[in-house]
């Protein structure tokens, strides 16, 4: 069963790139440039990992994370210099990030997820 990953970022280009790089049989990736459909999708599909950009169109990343009720692993993505990570996030990745690192991060997370199942 592929791992479910969501990426929310108002930067269209980053979303495209994310999709192109990470889309595979092992990863079921959904990307959103608007926060509302992203929140709705997450609440309905309970993804394993959610990457949320801090600066979005109408809300910031913290507000979006709080609006998502699932127990997914939430990762804050930010290009700001001084955003303190809210407790609702498990990790923080700073922009500019390497897609390879993101991929590794997902693989690691899958392993972690796989462990309890065994």
């Amino acid at each position, binding site marked *: 069963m592929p791992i479910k990953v969501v990426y929310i970022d108002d930067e269209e*280009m980053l979303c495209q790139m994310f999709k192109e790089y990470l889309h595979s049989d092992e990863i079921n990736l959904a990307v959103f440039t608007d926060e509302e459909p992203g929140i709705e999708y997450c609440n309905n599909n309970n993804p394993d990992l959610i990457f949320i950009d801090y*600066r979005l169109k109408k809300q910031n990343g913290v507000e979006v994370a709080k609006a998502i009720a699932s127990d997914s692993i939430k990762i804050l993505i930010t290009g700001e210099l001084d955003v303190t990570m809210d407790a609702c996030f498990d990790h923080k990745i700073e922009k500019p990030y390497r897609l390879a690192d993101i991929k590794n991060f997902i693989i690691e997370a899958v392993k972690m997820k796989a462990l309890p199942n065994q």
Partner: protein
Amino acid sequence: MPIEAEQNIYEKFFNLSIDMLCVANTTGYFQTINPSFTQVLGYSEEELLSAPILDFIHPDDVDKTAQEFAKLNSGHDSLFFENRYRHKNNHYLTFAWNGYIEGDSGLIYAVARDITEQVKVRNKLQYLQRALAQETIYAETDISGVITKVNDNFCEISGYSKAELIGNTHKLINSDHHPTSFFSEIWRKISSGKIWSGAIKNRKKNGDYYFVQSILVPIFDNNEKITNYIAIRQDITDKVNSEHDRLKALEILSETSSAAKVGGWEMDVASGALTWTNETFRILDVEQVDGLSPMLPEGLQLFIAEDQPIIEKAIHRAIEFGESYGLELQARTPKGDIKWIYTNGKANYIDGKIETISGTIQDIHQRKITEIKYNQERQKSIMNAKFAALGELSASVAHEINNPLGVISGYAELLQLTNTTASPEDILAKSAIILRSCDRITHIVKSLKKFSRSDEAIQHTTCSLKNLISEAIVLTRPKLKLCMIELQCEYIEESNILCNEIEIEQVIVNLINNAIDALSELSEKWIDILVTETTQDYIVSITDAGFTIPLDKQLSIFEPFFTTKNTGEGTGLGLSIVKGILDNHGAKIAIDNNNKNTSFVIHFPKLNNKVNQD
């Protein structure tokens, strides 16, 4: 002595005499004349003998001379009179005649003497005496000071009659104003044969005082002995009184000037001599020496070396072209202190010619020092505020850079990943995205660089308001986005102004930043920027959703350190600097009170207007 020898002697005297000797006949012609005649009158002997005597006589004297001749013919044996003869050069000489008629022959033997010079002296003396008697207060005293003669003017001014004055001394009109030594000094001088002149205060018969400028002259006889004195006086009562008033007025003026620290000066153009008021001496710290007035070169030396050519040129232009000036300069006092002064000057004309340059000098040291310090502080504040604004911006700008950086890095990774499989079109598309992201970063970094630059002497250049505003928006967009503020902008395409683009961009960034901060607590979040124009100005209004600023605060918001922000959130310098910059550009900023929202309105003079004004 033989007769021949005797005749010879008379002939010699006849030829030698400086008096003119002649024999005239009854028909009115000269019969014989001595050489003196030709010498004095300039004619040749032939000329004098060949014309009737009356032809040489002044027309006014012809009748008189004819009468004198007639007298001789009617029996008088001698004559004594004066008449005027025409010189060959057409001027007239006065002759005094002495002659007698020889009964038998009817010949007239006459002697004439040229008394022209004597007559001139005599006339001059008469005129002088008449003038003195008419125009001055005239008196004569004997050697002991007893009045022997007075004119009507003396009687009129003193109130005494001639009878009362003559026989008295001048003690009669003594005012008791002068000490005894004053008069003994006068006596010492005139009795030693010198002329005394000076002002004397006298008393009239009715007790009133009058002032006279007096000249007392001793008169000598031919043995160099003083025979009497004459006194020539002029009434100066009005002058003394007005001088008194003038001095009083001067004193008051001087005190006023001193209180205001304003000195006066005047320069005589011809001599370069300067006249300074007491306060001028005080301001320039120059010691005042009685009777010594400074000259222009010394005056110029009182300024520091750099300022000397400036004041020299200004004075030169005032003298040459009548141009007025006003300068703030640094003076170096004789003690070596440097002092800021303001001095102005203007040309004064007499009969259309510049005779003097005059003006004031003012001690502005304290004011100037404060002004210089204030400007330095202001410059520092501007820098500080700029860096504060830059600091505020940098955090959000970082985000704006990191996003495209993420795109670049990501697409590079994609290209690496697909290095064997990617189609040329794919590679082109991805590298285009990378390049576009690079442009985005370049653009924002450029704006930042411009914003943080602090070159002091930046020329005003022609800039498009549209460009300035869009660049300011590029800088503030990240912050706008972070705060979820919607910004709308309406430009005019052609909107050129003459400005320091960095400063004006700073103004717009500052106003947008202020608007962003003002909106943080509000639910409605929007900023509108609108550019409109009148015939004279371009008008930029920056309006945000906030309520209008209360009237009582509208004045103070442009003052330094006024802030509504919490401590640590703002320097409070923003709007004061905005106003300072706009003032320097001849632009005006105001709050639009007709708008229910907060609206700052800036009027920039249009480029063409400004050029015309300049």
